[in-house]
């Protein structure tokens, strides 16, 4: 909340103004043999407040690096990343960031409830039991509060991780292939649940994925990245109204957009 306040005070327009801004970001890594590797070549993107943006691209194109920079886990070689006009680290320091990683990153010594409560305990905010219970219900894990992560299935663990990322009502939600390791059926199921949750919470969200279907189903806008060195080659506003259903995914237009995005991915993938 505090960061929104500062945005207002600094005279930035609120509402449709971009909440997350990535401008001309270049990222170079040096390999073990000292060879430089250009991972990102001047990428720019914006995420409007309360909108859902999906970033798709071939594996190794640097899409996760973009997400890690917004999460303040990585820094650009040149260019800038800002969240509400501030450096991303400020958002994390204020406990206003929610992230669900590719790996669920649940702490094995805590049960489901304690894992979801973790952001409260880290930030020193008193635990809101009602909010925790509500989120456990939202991700369909009521009755499993006392279970430990190793007793859960892969899909359940990811649901716990998503509940944890949402619990503090973050200003920005970052999802790094959270369903990447799940089978197709569970994944589709999780996408429906995520949409339902997102519609209730309306958070500024970035989803990194390599699944065209997932991106089209969930996002307001889909950005396509090229293979290394990564930059955005296409931006598509998704026209489907919410709530999206199985019917949406079977429509003519969905298939057409799916083909279009797949073609864009193929044309610029690394050979």
């Amino acid at each position, binding site marked *: 909340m505090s960061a929104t306040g500062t945005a207002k005070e600094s005279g930035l327009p609120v509402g449709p103004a971009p909440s997350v801004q990535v401008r001309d970001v270049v990222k170079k890594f040096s390999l073990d043999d000292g060879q430089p590797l250009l991972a990102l070549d001047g990428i720019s993107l914006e995420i409007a407040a309360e909108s859902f943006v999906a970033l798709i691209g071939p594996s190794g194109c640097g899409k996760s690096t973009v997400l890690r920079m917004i*999460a303040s886990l990585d820094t650009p070689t040149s260019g800038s990343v800002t969240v509400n006009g501030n450096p991303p680290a400020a958002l*994390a320091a204020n406990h206003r960031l929610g992230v669900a990683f590719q790996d669920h990153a649940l*702490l094995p010594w805590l049960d489901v409830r304690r894992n979801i409560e973790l952001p409260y305990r880290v930030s020193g905010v008193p635990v809101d039991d009602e909010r925790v219970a509500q989120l456990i219900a939202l991700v369909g894990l009521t009755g499993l509060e006392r279970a430990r992560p190793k007793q859960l299935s892969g899909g359940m663990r990811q649901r716990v991780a998503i509940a944890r990322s949402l619990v503090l009502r973050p200003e920005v939600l970052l999802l790094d292939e959270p369903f990447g390791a799940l089978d197709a059926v569970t994944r589709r199921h999780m996408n429906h649940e995520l949409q339902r949750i997102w519609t209730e919470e309306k958070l500024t969200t970035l989803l990194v994925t390599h699944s065209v279907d997932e991106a089209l189903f969930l996002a307001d806008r889909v950005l396509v990245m090229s293979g290394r060195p990564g930059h955005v080659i296409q931006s598509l506003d998704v026209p489907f109204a919410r709530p999206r259903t199985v019917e949406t995914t079977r429509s003519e237009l969905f298939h057409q957009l799916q083909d279009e995005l797949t073609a864009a991915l193929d044309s610029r993938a690394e050979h």
Partner: protein
Amino acid sequence: MAASAQPREGSVLLGALGIGMFLLAWEIIGQNRWLGLTWPALSEVVAFLLTPSRQALFLRALTASLGSLAVGYCLGLVTGIAAAMLAHTVSPMRASLDTMSAFIHAIPSIALAPLFIVFLGRESTPAALAALSTFFVMYVTTTSSFASSRPEWIDLMRVLGASRLTRLRMLDIPAAIPIIVGGMRLAAPSALIGVIIGEWFGASRGVGVLIINAMQNFQIPLLWSAVVLAVIVSLSLFALLGLLQEYAERRFR
């Protein structure tokens, strides 16, 4: 989990068989005096240990040694873990603490014992030597155990905006516990060695005193009994801490 039960039972059985054969060989060699008078049969040693008139002697020695062990072990445990936490949270101190603990470890305790006798007195030396060896094992295992926090957990703590201390409390310590308990298990026998060496240099009672006196007076059954006592203490502690380690691994992994 269920699959590992079968081979485990097998290995326990095999281990018991090995120990049984060793004890049997001990008995036969002793009965036949194949290795001379200094190798008594197992049954003789057990009978000697269980003689009612000697119970008080053994009990007194055991209490003294266990007392020194408890004090030294706990002291080494607390200081070792505390030093490792300091090295972990205040990174500039890491290198010097590493060097210091390696330096302490490099000095043979047999060389330190006379110094300790002069400094600390005869009664405190066993505990001090136990503390020293426990400190080293605990420092090394605890510092390396803090590296066992997986990178994705560290990322999680960073995006949640955790301070260094919060991270230590909520991530590094719980993640390190199984390895720290493993270190506690390894430290126990080496602490006992420290106690016995310390006692050799002139404590008034203890298992080490019993060993050295029996040796000097050529009391062979007493010498063997004292050694068996030390082995029993060492193995029971090792087994007990093994149970604790098993629990820690179930609870924290």
